[in-house]
């Protein structure tokens, strides 16, 4: 992997982690968690695990949708 792309992925992971911890609104935390997941995927593809990348990309939104099932009920 190039140094610039790897630096961009590391910056995405650190920004997502920091914002997910600092924010207090649940929707802001989920958006920041999505930034962290976006930073993880270039590392998986760079290792050559394309099947793991396909499976994880299709499974990871289910976790967010399950969390949103609680999130809507708390807000109202």
């Amino acid at each position, binding site marked *: 992997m190039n140094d610039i792309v790897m630096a961009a992925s590391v910056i995405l992971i650190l920004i997502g982690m920091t914002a997910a911890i600092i924010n207090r609104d649940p929707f802001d935390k989920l958006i920041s968690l999505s930034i962290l997941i976006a930073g*993880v995927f270039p590392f998986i593809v760079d*290792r050559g695990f394309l099947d793991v990348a396909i499976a994880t990309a299709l499974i990871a939104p289910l976790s967010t949708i399950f969390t949103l099932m609680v*999130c809507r009920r708390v807000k109202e």
Partner: protein
Amino acid sequence: MTTELYSPEFVIGLVVLIVGTISVAFPRDKDYLTRLINLEIPGWGLLLVMLHYNEALALFTFAAMSVLSTYIFVRIMQKKEGI
């Protein structure tokens, strides 16, 4: 099995794992939902650490079990809070 000693995803995975675990143990709001969302941060950090060891089947199993445990926690929260 491991070619190099410190690959970049190993180091950044350990950082995410440790900081995420501290954030789960001591969150800003003492709430179930905050802890559940913070619990996904060390999960992705652990996936980055496991990526260093070149085992594809372990990554499959961990990704599936993470979503299943999230669903079980959501059901427990819905039963406990009565919503």
